[in-house]
């Protein structure tokens, strides 16, 4: 049985875009070797290469919808297609949702694939995580720990 996979996605140098990676770093302290925990910049090919080998995958990324900053969305990929924006389908913007849907098309989607998307406030270069988003990182890390340890 392979270890569960957690991928924190984003750019730590771009404000709240780094929240996925912050969750990955928190989980490294919480889970140690119990899970394979990676940080990625979000390129679909690399994400696909990692998730195709996993049976359980948690993917954490920042998102922008109309919800308040720090809002946590939990999406179970088994429940249906992820909402793709058309800009996700280009060589330069070939991102997380594309990676998941491509994995699904190729029959390589892990049996359990959960996406946590955290509503961002700002992508200011060089800025730290905003307060609401930083708080949400702690909440998401603890939820993933609980789910993986079966206490959630």
């Amino acid at each position, binding site marked *: 049985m392979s270890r569960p996979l957690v991928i924190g996605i984003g750019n730590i140098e771009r404000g709240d875009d780094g929240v996925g990676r912050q969750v990955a770093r928190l989980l490294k302290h919480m889970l140690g070797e119990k899970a394979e925990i990676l940080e990625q910049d979000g390129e679909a*090919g690399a994400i696909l290469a990692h998730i195709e080998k996993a049976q359980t995958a948690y993917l954490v990324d920042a998102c922008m919808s109309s919800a308040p900053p720090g809002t946590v969305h939990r999406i179970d990929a088994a429940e249906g297609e992820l909402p793709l924006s058309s800009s996700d389908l280009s060589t330069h913007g070939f991102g997380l949702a594309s990676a998941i849907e491509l994995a699904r098309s190729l029959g390589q989607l892990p049996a359990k694939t959960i996406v946590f998307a955290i509503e961002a406030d700002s992508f200011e270069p060089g800025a730290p995580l905003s307060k609401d988003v930083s708080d949400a990182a702690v909440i998401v890390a603890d939820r993933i720990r609980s789910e993986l340890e079966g206490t959630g």
Partner: protein
Amino acid sequence: MARKTIKVDYLARVEGEGAFKVVVRDGAVKQAELRIFEPPRFYEAFLRGRSFMEVPDITARICGICPIAYMMGSTHAIEKVLGIKLDGQLRELRRLIYCGEWIESHVLHAFMLHAPDFLGYDSAIAMARDHGDLVKKALDFKKTGNEIMTTVGGREIHPINVRVGGFYRVPSRRELAPLLDKLKAARDFAVEAVRVVSKFDFPDCERDYEFVALRHPNEYPLNEGRLVSNKGLDIPIEDYDETFEETHVEHSTALHSHIRGRGAYFTGPMARYSLNFDKLTPTAQQAAREAGLGPTCNNPFRSIVIRLVEALYAAEEAIRIIEAYEPPDRPFVEGSVRAGSGCHATEAPRGICYHRYTLDDTGTVTFARIAAPTSQNQPTIENDLTSFVGGWLDLPDKELQHRCEQAIRNYDPCISCSTHFLKLDVDRG
């Protein structure tokens, strides 16, 4: 003809933000505009005042798919100022990393963006449900290109190991060796891939282009050569500015390029191929012939085949370089910092990428100019659309839109580089 306006708010599978408008009156195309409204990015301005050593890493940020094109153009141009000319294994390593970029860029475009047009899918994700094996192999091929970038360049997107004079660190034979088996598998897949795409249904069309590409006496062009065309152009890169001109048009934030006194030209894989067929490897030439291509090709819809012939070439060239590789004594060559100007052009996946820089006597950039391939191809894209739409006016609106989008994707346009998304607006009057 009934008055009709066709509007598509978002044309996927191209790079960047722009729009396309066709005006049709009395059954004839009056106007075709590729409208790029991506904001200008001001790279040339913020390079001024920077050290020459920062230029490759800054210009690499122009594009996440073709950063090597910008790193190669800038390093070579600055090296001309500093009196540096690379040869031997350092020159070969530069070809190798460029092969990595050609592979990842061409394979991604051919299979993830362009092939769905021909196979009748609206995305690669939908295509993958029915053609999973092909998509998996293509993704592996692309990954091998990325691995070349990572091994030689330090990372796959925006590499950090390229510097003026060579590299910060050169790989060992042991580090390159694992790429060989992957490249050999990639080469075999590339032969199959050329055959597969050659069977697509291509619209009949032959256009009278002026192809412009680099040509080198001994090799298929990547980093060096003279600028040549099929209509008599044969100049050193130093004559670029006096031969080509950039003009501003109201409907685009990217400058349009023309050959002075002559007009639009076409740069990129079709031009390279048509001007350098004799420099391809025998395997690549044979694959092209078996795909029904002659030594030149004027049908832009067949560009997908040519991209994969070039990807095949790049895999073979990478194998050749790695098999003969001996690490050089030093990772870079030092030059003399001095005032002066230098220019250079290399063959980015999408075509000629031209750079000119002026340095002061401390090596600080006082002037920079960069002409990206998509910027150069804009007038030709508009000419193609003007030509094609006239023959497609009997098609239903949806089919006409699709054909226009496909015609634009023939160019693998990188609007982000040229100054990002395309809207399509067909006004039938």
